[in-house]
């Protein structure tokens, strides 16, 4: 494993004038994609705000059923994974390719940990019967408690899906990094997946207080 990774020169695409234009185009396109992702999640945040306005006391009662310690742990895990992702991009910029691969593997494992913790949380919810409306069979003081869990599962489920997609992309990055595609003059895919990963972390930063730490 300690074989030095051989750099594979990157050929700029035919329709771009130079790699600078290629990199900036990719970054602009990525930011447009992130803008679209934010608005995609905005629908869920608006639904959360509207239903919290409609049933405020139910939300407070419901959030007691969530284990904030697990939520906090997940937040820390995601922040660490963001850090390792940024370090991976940086090490590619300074041609430390071995270090870049290790950081990517670290990010991947943090993401895995996040999903495992999420799995435990879901397991405890299912066992208590706190599922979206059709399958909700726990007794509850509030007759519309199932809406909270409907919103909870939709938000965290969609976010979990984005984490899984992120993990797939990181594997793809690890394979390419091992083959020496990334070096100081070309690390665009690495930076783009990094941006995507930071957005996934960003959304969890807002999800955590809204769902787990109510009043």
């Amino acid at each position, binding site marked *: 494993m300690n074989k030095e990774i051989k750099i594979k020169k990157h050929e700029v*695409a*035919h*329709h771009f004038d130079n790699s600078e*234009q290629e990199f*900036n*185009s990719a970054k*602009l*396109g990525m930011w*447009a*994609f992130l*803008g*679209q*992702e934010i*608005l*995609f*999640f*905005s*629908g*869920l945040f*608006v*639904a959360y705000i*509207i*239903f919290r306005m*409609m*049933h405020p006391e139910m939300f407070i009662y419901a959030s007691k059923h969530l284990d904030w310690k697990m939520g906090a742990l997940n937040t820390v895990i995601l922040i660490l994974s963001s850090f390792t992702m940024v370090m991976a991009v940086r090490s590619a910029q300074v041609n430390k390719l071995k270090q870049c691969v290790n950081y990517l593997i670290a990010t991947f494992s943090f993401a895995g940990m996040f999903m495992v913790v999420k799995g435990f949380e879901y397991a405890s919810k299912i066992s208590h019967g706190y599922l*979206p*409306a*059709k*399958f909700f069979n726990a007794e509850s003081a509030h*007759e*519309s408690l*199932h*809406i909270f869990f*409907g*919103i909870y*599962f*939709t938000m965290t489920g*969609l976010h979990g899906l984005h984490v899984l997609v992120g993990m797939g992309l990181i594997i793809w990055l690890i394979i390419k990094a091992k083959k020496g595609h990334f070096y100081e003059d070309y690390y665009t895919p690495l930076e783009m997946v990094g941006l995507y990963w930071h957005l996934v972390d960003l959304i969890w930063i807002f999800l955590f207080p809204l769902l787990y730490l109510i009043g």
Partner: protein
Amino acid sequence: MGHLENINFFKAAKGFKSWLITVDHKRIGIMYLLFIVAAFTLGGLAAGIMRIELLSPDKVLLTAKQYNQFFTLHGAIMVFLFIIPSIPAALGNFFLPLQIGAKDVAFPKLNLASLYIYVFGALFCVYSMWHGAVDTGWTFYTPYSTTTDTSVISMTLGAFILGFSSILTGMNFIVTVHKMRAPGMTWFRMPLFVWSLYATSILQVLATPVLAITLLLLIVEKTMGIGIFDPAIGGDPVLFQHFFWFYSHPAVYIMILPAMGIMSELFTTFTKKNIFGYKAIAYSSIAIALVSFLVWGHHMFLSGQSDLASTIFSALTFIVAIPSAIKVFNWISTMYKGSIDLKTPFLYGLSFLFLFSVGGFTGIVLGTLSLDVHMHDTYYVVAHFHYVMMGGTVMGFLGGLHYWWPKMFGKMYNEFWAKIACALIFVGFNMVFFTQFILGSKGMPRRYYSYLDQFQPLHQFSTSGTWVMGLGFIIVFIYLINSLFRKEEVSNSPWGGITLEWQTTSPPPVYNFIETPIVDNDPYDFEKVKI
């Protein structure tokens, strides 16, 4: 760069496979054009059958449920499969890089991916049409959409996937306009068609994701019943309308802005005169794109929405009407002191001008709170949005198609038949939809399978108009296909247009320009540029 430079993009690669894996924006544009014409035909047939059914209050062809499935089919196909992708994906893909002097769009592979996502989404829609078609209307209002047993889930999945094709096209265009302009082409030397596509892309990227989450929530609501939209368990159906219209009003501007861009091209080339108020038109495109996010509530004045919100939406609706008015006045003033050549593309331009203005004035009627109470969900609204969408976008699309046909295929169509078809479409269109204004204000509600006998004469006259218009569209189809088999070649700029796409051969070479053009003049400066 090898020999590819001066062979036109049709002959550059042969065989079916070369079309399937092409990343050339011109070929992708033509493939989009084929799908869009097919979707328009399918949607048009559905409308024709509906109108025949409405010849009499009792059953002519369809039962009540079938009629409801047909109007949903007509709405969904026309909106998601035809009108949103029509100008940006077909003509936009082909001409955006050409007009800014680029070799291709910023992400060619992504461009091909969005074409395949479009096809994949279209398959979902076709599947759901065949297997228990949806009967909820293209708006999928809950709680009806969550309680009906028709295949709402596969249709919403289809629309969900089509949304991504639209987002990716929008992203591609934003980056292309920002990063791929020819040297010397500043923002105010770009043609106005590019400005309108840029404004459309902002809308596509920032509005479509909310449609995606709305449809996703609808699917989750239908399968798991999370109760956000279902009133029986504490949800709020009006909230669904907010989610749906937050996307769908910017969507109607996604539909009209590209057509407005084509108008600026037609009104300059066929009057051989620089556009009147270039900056005004460019800024009003962007203004429309931004203000369009503030007005969606005028679809919901009567839906149980609070009166405060309705009042604010009504006021903002009037503000969004102003930029469109400015554009129309600018186009008319462009004709002043021009040298006007009444070829078919320009005839479509003029019919856009008048039909879109009628649509605009009736839009102001519908934006007024007290009048909307009477007019809402009647045929008045049906006539209004057909005047704006069909009178606007379809006329713009046909105008652009005829204007750029020689450039795309290197063949000229038959001018005589084109004028006849344009007249037929114009007359037929007004027969169909002007009567519907009167039908609507007289109280005929929308989406009615059978109606009171007293409305029958108006309905029959409206249906007869669809046959005239249908004939017009058939003639257009015939002579355009026929033009492909003509022998004589077409010069670089048959209409005398001077924007960049007219400075290369028609059909253009694979990389658009022999050598990258240097731009040092305004896009429509007829004095400086002599072709």
